[in-house]
């Protein structure tokens, strides 16, 4: 991966800057918000046309099992025999109102599947980000401070290893060592069956197991839930931790050479404070920007991690639907994930603009 700097502003933005005399944060948010729609439109359309290029979903899912007459009947009932443009417009309208169709293999609304399993994936991604921050940022500071010395050499190799190890391989290794050989952590799933049953009938059930476990007020259930999350979060988090480490290192090396750091040092500011305050703060901005890109990477990684740990989230479901060749469901999940990525990029850009006025259009 290249060292990711802040994304270059779009060409329209550059021109706007020349014609108008700048603008406030409100204006920036509006423009940036308006840009989401073409992105989502392009992504959703792309998914639709690509998936439909293979033929209609009914034949793909049930082709081997039903006779030609039954197939034609099902295709007609679902409306897949109409002109593709009509279906496209209808699909866009449905997506706009939040209707992603009905799965073929399980006959459930895709939206329901997305809601049920989406929270599980969100929980996993959240934990992984926590791991990535805890591991990546302090180590990045260490590497930058001892630049070209032994700790730096070691940490850079570590960062590259984090990136070079496919997330499903590290997941398998963790599982092998901690669950099978040492037997200290559970092998798979989000919680043991007993805990799941207890959480099933909570009145304020959120689907986010950590919160549900807290609601039961039973420390054992909480421990159970957290211990199930450790390995998946570690596997997925280390992937991002490597990226954070390198990014913090690069940027802190840049800011450590700045004049204001020298002037701080001449005033007798301690080295620790120089690194953790003076050099670190401005180096954070590119990280915030990169989190936007990391969300896409994390979602890809979540699909693989969930498959290894049978973490019942969107990725796990996606793998199942792929095996069942249920392309309506696949299309829905992929489209939703694309929308999530577009939205999180928007949020990240806004946060970056609030922190750093130079970013604004």
């Amino acid at each position, binding site marked *: *991966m*290249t*060292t990711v700097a802040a994304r*270059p502003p*779009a*060409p*329209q933005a550059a021109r706007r800057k020349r014609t108008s005399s700048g603008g406030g944060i409100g204006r920036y948010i509006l423009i940036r918000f308006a840009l989401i729609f*073409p*992105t989502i439109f*392009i*992504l959703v359309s*792309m*998914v639709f046309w*690509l*998936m439909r*290029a*293979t033929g209609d979903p009914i034949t*793909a899912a049930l082709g081997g099992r039903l006779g030609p007459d039954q197939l034609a009947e099902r295709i007609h009932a679902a409306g897949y025999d109409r002109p593709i443009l009509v279906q496209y417009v209808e699909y866009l309208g449905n997506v706009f109102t939040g209707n992603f169709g009905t799965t073929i293999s399980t006959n459930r609304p895709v939206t329901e599947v997305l809601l049920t399993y989406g929270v599980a994936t969100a929980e996993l991604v959240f934990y992984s980000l926590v791991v990535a921050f805890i591991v990546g940022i302090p180590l990045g500071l260490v590497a930058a401070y001892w630049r*070209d010395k032994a700790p*730096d*050499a070691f940490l*850079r*190799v570590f960062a*590259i*290893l984090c*990136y*070079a*190890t*496919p997330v*499903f*391989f590290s997941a*398998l*290794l963790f*599982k*092998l060592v901690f669950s*099978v050989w040492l037997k200290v952590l559970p092998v*798979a799933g989000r919680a043991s069956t007993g805990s799941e049953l207890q959480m099933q009938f909570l009145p304020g059930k959120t689907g986010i197991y950590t919160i549900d476990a807290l609601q039961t007020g039973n420390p054992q259930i909480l421990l159970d839930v957290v211990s199930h999350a450790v390995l998946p979060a570690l596997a997925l988090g280390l992937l991002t931790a490597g990226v954070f480490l390198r990014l913090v290192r*690069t940027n802190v*090396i*840049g800011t450590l*050479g700045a004049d204001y750091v020298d002037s701080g040092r*001449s005033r007798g500011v301690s080295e620790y404070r120089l690194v953790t305050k003076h050099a670190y703060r401005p180096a954070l901005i590119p990280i915030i920007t990169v989190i936007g890109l990391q969300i*896409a*990477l994390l*979602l*890809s990684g979540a*699909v*693989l991690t969930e*498959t*290894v740990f049978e973490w019942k989230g969107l990725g796990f479901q996606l*793998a199942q639907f*792929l*095996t069942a*060749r249920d392309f309506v469901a*696949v299309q829905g999940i*992929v489209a939703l*994930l*694309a929308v999530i*990525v*577009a939205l999180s990029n928007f949020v990240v850009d806004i946060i970056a603009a609030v922190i750093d006025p130079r970013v604004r259009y």
Partner: protein
Amino acid sequence: MAGSGMTDTEMIATSIATGPHKRNRLSRLPVVHQLRQSVGLQRGMLVVGLVISGIFILTAILAPLIAPFGYSQLRDANGAFGAQNPPGGSHLLGTTVGGYDVLSRVIWGAQTALIVIVIAVILSIFAGVMLGLVSGYFGGWLDRVFVVVFDAVYAFPSLLLAIVMSIVISGGRSNLIGGVLAAAISITTVFIPQYFRVIRAETVRIKAEAYVESARVLGASNARIMFRHVLRNATRTLPLIFTLNASEAILTLAGLGFLGFGIEPSAAAEWGYDLNKAVSDVSSGIWWTALFPGLAIVLAVLGMTLVGESLNDLADPRLRGRRSVAKSSGLVAETSVVPGGTVKDEFEVPQ
């Protein structure tokens, strides 16, 4: 920084090759130049990366000679191999749940990976560079549409895009040629936006240079300007993206294989597929079916990434090893007129 100015001139001198100190042909090759430029840890990383990548490529090419068995071989003269045999005996790394020899599949897997990388990278360089060049050179509404579309594609989770593409190309099931092509094209789709961005940005910059203007005044055609004047000068960063993408290609291929979009085991060996089959083995404590294909992926990616990282760091003056900085600041010190040393010595703050 004094160092960056100096080396920029060097770079321009090497890329145009008209400076007074013209370098010889060998040191102008992309990687050789960087190898000479690097120092200490950076050189170590570059060398280790080159060695690992070299081993990977050699293994891939020589697979038929090195591998003890075929990738889909289930039996030899002594009968069937048997499933899940631990390492040892005639199967150095054991056998898989499907009864294949692990070592042979790991070695043959290198070949599959190399073929996919080569096809994917060539396709994406070709498509991405062409689109970026045309888009950046002509500008206008086409450029704006391309930028918006490729930005959207760039934001898409790459593995999901690869999955969708592989469904489109092969319906998710594949033989050797279909599978390799499907994987390569899927990976290509993911990479095109990256090449597009880089080449477009460079093209927009170079288009404004005086020599492009003068070529146009002389009556050169658009095609001639694009390929002779712009493209030649816009490709400086390509080796860097190339190595980084090659490593990402291996990961994407393995990811596809792991999700069951790989190549059938009878058609070719693929590390991701083998890892997928190893998931259930791991739960019962069988480690060799997962460990070795996984290590193969890690090593291959590690080698390529080390090379790419080093090239990246060497291209960035802030991160380049310190010898080059010291060397050029030495030049500055020589020309400075403070008697008895540099300014810094005179004003050193007492501790």
